[in-house]
């Protein structure tokens, strides 16, 4: 079975631009969470979605938004990019939102 897949794997954007990151969860999993990992730190929680509804939101500005589609895939959108948004963005999949979460390989975003 395929694991969590994320696209694109790498992305370079300019300050002020908008970016959309995509995630497909493990087949049968209905919950997707997004995390930001800055170099040298552990991942930080951004959002969790379950059955297309937002379950939780971390301490991130409103420039960050997300949604989950009927097929349980998800998008993370970031507007008005800042240099500090440069990070590895991770998507985690779980069956029903419990904490046994499985991560994708991430999208490495560089803002210049």
């Amino acid at each position, binding site marked *: 079975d395929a694991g*969590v897949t*994320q696209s694109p794997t790498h992305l370079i954007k300019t300050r002020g631009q908008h970016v959309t990151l995509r995630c497909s969860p493990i087949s049968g999993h209905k*919950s997707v*969470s997004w*995390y930001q990992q800055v170099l*040298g*730190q*552990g*991942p*930080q*929680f951004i959002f*969790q979605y379950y059955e297309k509804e937002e*379950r*939780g939101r*971390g301490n991130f500005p409103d420039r960050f938004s997300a949604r989950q589609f009927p097929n349980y895939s998800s998008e993370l959108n970031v507007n008005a990019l800042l240099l500090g948004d440069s990070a*590895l963005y*991770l998507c*985690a999949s*779980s069956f*029903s*939102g*419990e*904490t*046994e*979460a*499985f*991560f*994708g*390989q*991430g999208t*490495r975003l560089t803002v210049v």
Partner: protein
Amino acid sequence: QKEVEQDPGPLSVPEGAIVSLNCTYSNSAFQYFMWYRQYSRKGPELLMYTYSSGNKEDGRFTAQVDKSSKYISLFIRDSQPSDSATYLCAMSALGYSSASKIIFGSGTRLSIRP
């Protein structure tokens, strides 16, 4: 003070040694405890998942949770060069039917010398 504290290392041990990795935490509501392994420029891989206090063993890996001391450990027996990676402890206060906000430590870089 961070909710989860983890020594960033780096930790370097010879092949075959027993490795001990540790984390402390401050939130007594944490009930779910995890260890992830992360290779350079890759996503975290779930190694161990435990609920509440006690020990859990899986092959060469043993996870221990001591909620009274707010301390968790991961032991790796017969360490191999392929174990060289960053190890992230993680924990959560909530589980089924609730937002599973996982709090991670900053990670310990481990290097196994052949």
